[in-house]
């Protein structure tokens, strides 16, 4: 089951941010959500995730129970270690399989054994971002939303993250909000371009496009 948007309109600060958007996401694969800053990408992601229900229209296949989110601002629990932030968000600490999976994910994301026990305040911005990503990767939900997942990562870690995204996209829909064209190319992703709704009086549709980008060899 993919996510379907039907005539979704979002008004924010008395201004139409998203105007009558209809779109069907596939049930697997990667769709990159792109567009200028402030155009409503994160807002749309929050609406799909069920965190913002103040909109017009219909969203099917989304909601809290169906979506795992990695937020742009990391949002880690300050009293929990890196590994606990990943495991406890999803399972109990007694779940050895979840602990093993979380460790595996964090190792792939460049963590060393001793760094798993560090608190968020002891981690760098990039490490906090990777913990936040691992937390979202671990949650079993049909839809995974990643808000600027590769923003603060170096080349190697970025490759690892994209690799995990590719793997995860075989099982579920990954919606990646990004400003980086390389992400789209490397993931061979479909793209949903959000733009400012047009100002013409007769226009009741925002200029949202759905395009395929082929990988460049």
């Amino acid at each position, binding site marked *: 089951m993919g996510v379907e948007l039907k005539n979704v309109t979002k008004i924010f600060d008395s201004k139409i941010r998203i105007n009558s958007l209809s779109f069907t996401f596939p049930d697997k694969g990667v769709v990159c959500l792109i567009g200028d800053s402030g155009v409503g990408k994160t807002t749309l992601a929050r609406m799909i995730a069920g*965190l913002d229900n103040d909109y017009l229209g219909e969203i099917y296949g989304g909601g*809290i129970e169906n979506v795992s989110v990695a*937020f742009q601002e990391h949002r880690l*629990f300050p009293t*929990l270690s890196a590994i606990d932030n990943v495991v*406890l*968000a999803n399972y109990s600490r007694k779940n050895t399989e979840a602990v093993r999976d979380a460790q595996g994910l964090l190792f792939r994301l460049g963590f060393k054994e001793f760094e798993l026990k560090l608190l968020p305040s002891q981690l760098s911005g990039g490490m906090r971002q990777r913990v936040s990503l691992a937390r979202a990767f671990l949650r079993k939900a049909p839809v995974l939303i990643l808000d600027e997942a590769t923003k603060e990562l170096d080349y190697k870690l970025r490759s690892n993250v994209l690799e995990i995204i590719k793997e995860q996209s075989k099982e579920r829909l990954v919606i990646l909000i990004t400003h980086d064209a390389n992400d789209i190319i490397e993931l061979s992703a479909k793209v949903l371009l959000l733009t400012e709704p047009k100002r013409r009086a007769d226009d009741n549709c925002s200029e949202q496009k759905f395009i395929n980008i082929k990988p460049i060899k």
Partner: protein
Amino acid sequence: MKNSTISPKIKWSLEIAVGIGIWLAIWQIFAVRENNSFLFPDIPSTLSALGEIIRTGEFVKTVSSTLIRVLIGLGSGIAAGGVLAVLSHHLSFVKAFLAPILSVIKATPVASFIIILWIKMDGGELAIFIAFMMVMPIIWQNLIDGYNSIDRSLSEVCICYEFSFIKRLRVLVIPNLIRYLIPGIVTATGLAWKSEIAAEIIAYTRDSIGQNINDAKFNMDSPTVFAWTLIVIALSIALELIAKLILWRCKKWASN
């Protein structure tokens, strides 16, 4: 240049010890200059009075009766402040109902309460109630501040990841509230002792530290007044440390 190998903890302890030493020296210098143990007793005479107090058979009885009253006042104040803060957080009318009266309680001088309530209560009850009245509004306010400071973005993570009520409590609410509860309890412990002793002195509560301070004052025995004050300070610090230890354990439990 060789780096210092003293750990920060030892350095801090040494600095505290030096600080205490300087204050004791200042005390002694003033006492010697005053040369009047009635107006300002020196350290040896205070220590000698302290020794005498401890040697008497009544010491344990006196201290324990005051300590029990402080513990009852402090404990009931913390419990009531906690329960009312939780209710106020979830029910806005409870907060609106309590906020004005708790502000009045915080602003009213302790002595006024003691004198007003003295007519209705006996010395022991009065001392407990006064400690309770001083503690409860502080705990309530600190917990309300703690609730208000809970990071909304983390609350959203709890929703997003479908945390159970208990899990949300353990990873978000309790650590946040404890952060505000620790300074609240430190302040409340000091206030509980001060108000308790004030109530005991004014109401002349039987078998209490306040009664002993009162007697010493009537006998113009300032070293004894100073010695009892030192005992109160030591007990207050000890109680504060125990409270901090309990809260630290709660915090550790919450993050485990």
